[in-house]
């Protein structure tokens, strides 16, 4: 059975007018009226010709880089901004969670803030009274309810706001990724709530650049870049496209980023290569480096570091740790170093920084973001690493 369309976005464009000299005062109006030269408005195209539909019960993801326009789109869906062109149609009650605790006032007590934020979410005083105990217990803040909100820690505020937010009665929910900034415990609660919403067949629009959560929760997703739609497909396909986007833009400029390379160049890399730019189910990633000594050197150490797209250092190693010593290099000597890195990587984009240091710790060549590679495996796992794990079950099993 064809499900009902609850969000319909038709050719939506949004422009922001950015006056260089804003007429923010009456004087400004007069002065800009008489001087033609200074009156220049720059139009910023935040969104261009976006169209999509979301059906009832669907989890729909919106992904894109920072500044791609995804937050503007979310604000248009929430009807906070009006589209410059195009139309949106929404059926059912929509509650946006662009920020938790909208309307929270630091000068009021926790209790007063529950009523205020509740009103913003559409709860009457009576309705809040009925669920007040539930909210306070869930947030584990009973002792603090008569204290002013300004005395709460940020974690406490988020807890209170969240336990209220999950009780909002809505047909459509909009979530901004900023929600996922809490600690691990809070994030787990958030994601449990997502699962709960999914069970209840709620329609959810979810903005993020965390591909793992997009893959895990969303049925379909939309990729925006430079204010335009790039693709709209299943979450998995869109997540792949998103990583590819980073990959492409990195290789095109990657080797030119000279400022990210430093060291005294007593010995430096002359050539770097990897066996594949896209790693799927190969067992190893082979990295070959060629270094040339520019003077006589006693002992050098070659190493590298692998970071993921969010900058987390995943692994690092050097020749010293591997108990291999490279000694007595003469000026002009070339050395070839080949690393075989087991493919334990989960899907995503990775960056490799090779380095050369002397035994006394002097840095000769440290090359940040020198190489990038992409991992796209058959089986997707939503964890940091995805090594090939063996499984053998003996005893009672069904073949």
């Amino acid at each position: 059975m064809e499900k009902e369309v609850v969000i319909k976005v038709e050719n939506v464009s949004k422009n922001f007018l950015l006056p260089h000299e804003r007429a923010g005062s009456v004087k400004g109006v007069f002065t800009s009226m008489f001087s033609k030269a200074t009156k220049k408005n720059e139009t910023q195209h935040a969104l261009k010709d976006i169209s999509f539909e979301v059906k009832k019960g669907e989890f729909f993801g919106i992904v894109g880089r920072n500044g791609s326009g995804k937050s503007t789109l979310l604000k248009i869906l929430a009807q906070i901004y009006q589209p410059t062109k195009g139309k949106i149609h929404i059926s059912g009650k929509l509650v946006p969670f662009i920020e938790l605790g909208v309307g929270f006032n630091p000068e009021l007590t926790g209790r007063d803030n529950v009523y205020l934020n509740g009103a913003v979410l559409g709860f009457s005083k009576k309705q809040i009274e009925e669920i007040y105990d539930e909210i306070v217990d869930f947030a584990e803040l009973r002792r603090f309810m008569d204290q002013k909100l300004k005395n709460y820690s940020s974690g406490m505020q988020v807890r209170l706001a969240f336990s209220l937010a999950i009780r909002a009665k809505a047909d459509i929910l909009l979530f901004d990724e900023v929600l996922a900034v809490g600690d691990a415990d809070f994030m787990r609660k958030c994601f449990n709530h997502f699962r709960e919403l999914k069970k209840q067949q709620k329609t959810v629009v979810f903005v993020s650049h965390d591909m793992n959560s997009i893959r895990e929760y969303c049925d379909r997703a939309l990729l925006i870049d430079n204010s335009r739609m790039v693709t709209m497909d299943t979450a998995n396909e869109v997540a792949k496209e998103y990583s590819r986007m980073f990959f492409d833009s990195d290789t095109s400029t990657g080797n030119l980023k000279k400022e990210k390379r430093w060291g005294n160049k007593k010995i430096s890399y002359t050539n770097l290569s990897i066996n594949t730019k896209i790693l799927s189910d190969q067992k190893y990633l082979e990295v070959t480096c060629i270094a040339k000594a520019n003077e006589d050197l006693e002992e050098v150490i070659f190493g590298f570091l692998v970071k993921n797209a969010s900058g987390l250092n995943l692994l690092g190693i050097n020749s010293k740790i591997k108990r291999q010593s490279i000694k007595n290099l003469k000026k002009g000597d070339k050395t070839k170093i080949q690393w075989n890195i087991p493919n334990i990587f989960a899907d995503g984009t990775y960056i490799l920084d090779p380095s050369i240091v002397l035994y006394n710790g002097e840095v000769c060549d440290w090359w940040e973001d020198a190489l990038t590679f992409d991992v796209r495996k058959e089986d997707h796992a939503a964890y940091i690493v995805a090594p090939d794990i063996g499984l053998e079950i003996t005893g009672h099993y069904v073949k």
Partner: protein
Amino acid sequence: MHKLRQRYRYSVILLREIVRTDFKIRYQNSFLGYVWSLLRPLLLFVILYFVFTKFLKVGTGVPHYPVYLLLGLLYWNFFVEVTMGSVTAIVGKGDLIRKINFPKYIIILAVLTGALINLSLTAVVVVIFMIAGHVSVSWQALLLIPLLLELILIALTAAFFLSAAFVRYRDISYVWEVIIQATFYATPILYAMTRIPHVYAKILILNPFAQVIQDSRYVLITHSTETISTIYNGDRWIWAIPIGLTIILVALTTTYFRRRSHAFAEEV
């Protein structure tokens, strides 16, 4: 009726909670708290009363001058509270506006509600003064209801315009401070209309605010006060000018507010 309630349910809930919050915030950390909103206009009244009955004697010849002055002051106070409160109201709620979509007029209605609560409380004092001053009240006092409605509309029309314009032009707050000073003297709050030259009286009374004050005094306190009709030699149709002006202004400013309100989230 049920449908209407459904439609405005959210607005009513939000309005109630915003009014409550604004009150709590305004009077927290003050010893007398809410009493101040009563005390402030009364103290002002005492000062003006002494100045204008003992020193300047503006009130001589006006029957029940204390009540006459008090009523004018309360109307004035209400008007100032609504308009001055509204100027920065939209910008002040910018945080909320940027995060969720709700009918923006609620912000202005919240300011109005706050001022109305104050007005009704201070009205109790007027009643006390009327009893003490042996003012006899006739059925005509019922006409206060439409007059108060007009007063509310006058305050609202200014509030809608000022708050929406302030989002774009931040000079409005200073301009309005000056205008409100001028309005205070251009409106017969302290003085009787008979005390100013007839030519000016004819112009000043066309101001809806002046007309409302004079009419209210007429129906409630004394028939010897001038109204727009007596100034224009008993012409009853002359009422159409201030009332029509009010209606036109309300239509214009609410339209302006509604049009501009779509862009509030981007501009506050």
